[in-house]
C-alpha cells in the first residue's frame, strides 16, 4: 500500500495543528523519521499502489521521494533547534503546515493520473503558503500574496494544459486511462496539435512553480521571507516536484515523436532562466535572495539539460539530486547566519570564518558545491549537460550556458567572500549547537559521496528515469 507514505504525514500534520509546541516539535522529527523509513521500504519492496488509476511507483518519482524524505528528516532535526533560537508565534501552524507540505509533495512524486498530479502540485502551494507568512511582517505578507497568486494562476494554466492533453486523446480517439504511464505508451496516437498546445501550457504552468524565468518573480521573495527551514524545503524539494510534472509530460512528447519541439522550448526557458539569474546574482544585496536566484539558475540548467536529452538529461538528473542536497544545506546555513547577525543584508555580515567557524565550514563548502566546483556533484552534472549539448550540436546554447556559469560563479564568489572574510563588528550570541550544523554537514557529505559512489540501485533508477526519455545514449 503505497498511499500510506503521504497519508501518514497528512494525519500527523492535521494533529500538529492542535497540539502545543512541546508535542509538536517531537512530532515533526518522528514523522520525518517515519517517512524516511516508509520511503526506504517503498524503494526496496516496490509495492503496488491501492488506487492504480491514480498512483504509480515510477523511477523518477522514487528518486524524488527519497530525496524529499532524506531532506525532510534532516531539516526537521534542524527545525527543532531553529525554533528554540527564534521567536515564532503560532508555532503549531508552522509545524502543521510543514507536515502537510511534506504530505502533498509526497503525493506529487507518487501520482500518475494527470489531474491527480495537478491537484497535488496545487496542494503544495496551499500547504506552503502559511510557512512563508510565518514571521507575520508586511514583507512576508507581500511575499505570500505574490506566491499564492502567481503560482495559482500559473498552475491554473497547467490545468488547462492537462485538459488540452485529454482533448488530444478525444481527437485522436484514444481510449486509455488519463495517466502519464498510459499516455506515454499510446503517445503516437494522440493528436499532435492539441498535445503540443497542452505541453506548452503545462510547461508555462509548472514552470512558474519551478521558478523558470520569466515566471520566477515570486521565487526570490518567497524563499527569502520564509523561515530558513521552510526555504530549504521550498528550494530543495518543491522545485523538483514541479519539475517532475514537466519531466513526465516531456516523456509523453518524446514518445509521441515531438521531442524536438519540447526540447527546443525547454532549452529556451532554461537559458532565459540562467541569464536572468545571472543578472540578479551580480548585484544582489541579500544572501537569502542570492541563494534563491542560484536556485533559478540551477533550475534553468536542469530544464536546459532535459531539453538537450541523452547525456544532458542524465546530467540534469544529477544536477536535480545534488541541487536539492546542497541548496537545502545552504538555506539551513543561511538560517544560522540570520540568527547570528540578525540581518539578511550581505553588508551587515562578515568575518563568518572567525565568528561562526562551524557555520562557515558548511557555508563555504556549500558555496563551492553549488557553484559547480569539483569534487561536488553539480560539477559532474553540469559537465554532462554541457557535453550533451555539444554532442547534440547545440553550440550556441552550450556557449551561452558556459559563459553565464562563469559570470554567475564570479558574482557568487564575490558575495561569498564578503560574507566569509569581510571585517565585521557584529556580536554573535548564537551558540553553534550540533543540531544547527550537523544536518548541513550530512547533506553536503551525501552529495560528496554520491559523486564517487552511486549505489547500484540508485544508478539503475536514474538510468531508468532518463533512458525512457531519450532511448539510451
Amino acid at each position, binding site marked *: 500500500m503505497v498511499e500510506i507514505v503521504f497519508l501518514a504525514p497528512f494525519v500527523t500534520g492535521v494533529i500538529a495543528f492542535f497540539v502545543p509546541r512541546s508535542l509538536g516539535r517531537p512530532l515533526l522529527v518522528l514523522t520525518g523519521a517515519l517517512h524516511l523509513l516508509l520511503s526506504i521500504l517503498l524503494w526496496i519492496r516496490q509495492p503496488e499502489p491501492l488506487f492504480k488509476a491514480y498512483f504509480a511507483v515510477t523511477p523518477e518519482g522514487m528518486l524524488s521521494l527519497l530525496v524529499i524524505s532524506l531532506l525532510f528528516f534532516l531539516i526537521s532535526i534542524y527545525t527543532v533547534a531553529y525554533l528554540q533560537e527564534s521567536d515564532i508565534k503560532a508555532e503549531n501552524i508552522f509545524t502543521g503546515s510543514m507536515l502537510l507540505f511534506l504530505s502533498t509533495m509526497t503525493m506529487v512524486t507518487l501520482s500518475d493520473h494527470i489531474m491527480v498530479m495537478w491537484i497535488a502540485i*496545487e496542494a503544495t502551494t496551499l500547504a506552503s503558503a502559511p510557512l512563508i507568512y510565518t514571521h507575520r511582517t508586511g514583507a512576508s505578507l507581500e511575499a505570500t500574496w505574490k506566491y499564492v497568486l502567481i503560482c495559482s494562476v500559473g498552475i491554473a494554466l497547467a490545468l488547462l494544459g492537462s485538459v488540452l492533453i485529454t482533448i488530444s486523446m478525444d481527437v485522436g480517439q484514444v481510449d486509455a486511462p488519463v495517466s502519464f504511464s498510459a499516455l506515454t505508451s499510446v503517445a503516437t496516437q494522440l493528436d499532435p496539435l492539441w498535445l503540443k498546445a497542452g505541453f506548452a501550457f503545462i510547461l508555462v504552468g509548472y514552470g512558474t512553480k519551478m521558478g523558470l524565468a520569466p515566471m520566477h518573480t515570486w521565487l526570490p521573495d518567497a524563499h527569502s521571507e520564509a523561515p530558513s527551514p521552510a526555504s530549504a524545503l521550498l528550494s530543495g524539494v518543491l522545485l523538483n516536484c514541479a519539475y517532475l510534472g514537466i519531466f513526465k509530460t516531456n516523456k509523453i512528447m518524446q514518445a509521441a515523436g515531438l521531442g524536438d519541439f519540447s526540447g527546443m522550448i525547454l532549452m529556451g526557458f532554461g537559458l532565459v532562466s540562467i541569464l536572468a539569474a545571472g543578472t540578479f546574482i551580480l548585484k544582489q544585496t541579500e544572501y537569502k535572495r542570492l541563494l534563491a536566484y542560484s536556485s533559478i539558475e540551477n533550475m534553468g540548467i536542469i530544464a536546459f539539460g532535459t531539453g538537450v536529452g541523452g547525456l544532458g538529461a542524465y546530467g540534469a538528473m544529477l544536477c536535480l539530486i545534488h541541487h536539492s542536497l546542497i541548496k537545502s544545506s545552504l538555506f539551513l546555513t543561511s538560517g544560522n547566519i540570520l540568527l547570528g547577525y540578525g540581518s539578511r543584508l550581505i553588508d551587515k555580515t562578515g568575518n563568518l570564518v572567525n565568528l561562526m567557524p562551524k557555520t562557515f565550514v558548511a557555508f563555504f563548502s556549500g558555496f563551492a558545491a553549488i557553484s559547480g566546483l569539483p569534487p561536488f556533484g553539480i560539477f559532474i552534472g553540469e559537465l554532462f549537460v554541457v557535453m550533451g549539448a555539444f554532442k547534440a550540436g547545440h553550440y550556441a546554447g552550450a556557449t551561452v550556458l558556459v559563459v553565464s556559469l562563469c559570470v554567475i560563479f564570479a558574482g557568487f564568489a564575490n558575495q561569498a567572500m564578503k560574507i566569509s572574510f569581510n571585517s565585521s563588528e557584529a556580536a554573535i550570541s548564537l551558540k553553534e549547537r550540533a543540531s544547527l550544523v550537523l544536518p548541513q554537514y550530512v547533506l553536503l557529505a551525501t552529495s560528496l559521496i554520491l559523486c564517487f559512489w552511486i549505489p547500484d540501485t540508485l544508478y539503475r533508477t536514474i538510468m531508468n528515469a532518463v533512458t525512457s526519455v531519450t532511448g539510451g545514449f
Partner: protein
Amino acid sequence: MNIPVDTILSLVLLSILFSFGSSRLPGLIKVLAFQGVIVSIVPLVIGHDLTTGGILFTLATLTIRGIVIPLCIYLAIKRVAIRREVEPIVGYHASLLAGLGLIVAAVVVSHRFEAPSSSASVLLLPTAIALLVAGMFLLMARRNAIAMVLGYIMMENGIYLVGTTFSVRALHIVEFGILLDVLAGVMIMAIILQNIKQTFDDVDTALLRTLKE
C-alpha cells in the same frame, strides 16, 4: 446547434462585458457567482451525464462555484470594510472596448480548432477562451487585490468550461479534487486579503511593492 446552451452561454459573454465595465466590487462578485452557476450547469444541459453521480457532482460544483466561493470573497470584503472600487489601471471604457475585441477574437480563434465539443454547442469554446483571457485581463488591469482574486476565479471558470468536453471521461472524484483545491486556494487568498487590509490598511497592490530588485 444547441439552442438552450448557446442562450445561456451568450449571457456569460455579456457578463464578461459587464464585469469589465463595472467599478464596484459587489457587482463584480455577483457576475462571478452568475458565471459559476452557468458553467456548472452547462454539462448537464449538454446532456453529458444524466446519471445520479453526475447530477450530484453538478450540484456540488454549483454550490461551490456559484455560492461558496463568491460568498467567501463577499464576506472578506464585508468584514474588513474595504473600499469598494476596483482601482483600474486600464480605464472602464478602454476595458469595455478590449472586452468586445476579446469576444470577437475568441470566436474567430475557436473556429480554427476542431474541438470535439463544437458539435454540442457553437459558443462553448469561444466562451471558454473569452472567460480565460478576461480573467487574465482583470488580473493585470486592476490594482485592487480583490479584483485580482476575482480575475483568477474567472480564469478557473473558463478552464472548467474547456474541461466540460472532457467530463465524459473524467472521474468525478478527480474533478471534485480539483474543485476542492480551487476552493481552498480562494479561501487562503481571502485570508491573505484580510491580513493585507489589517497590515497596510488598504488592498491596493501598489502598496505591495517593497520586495523589488
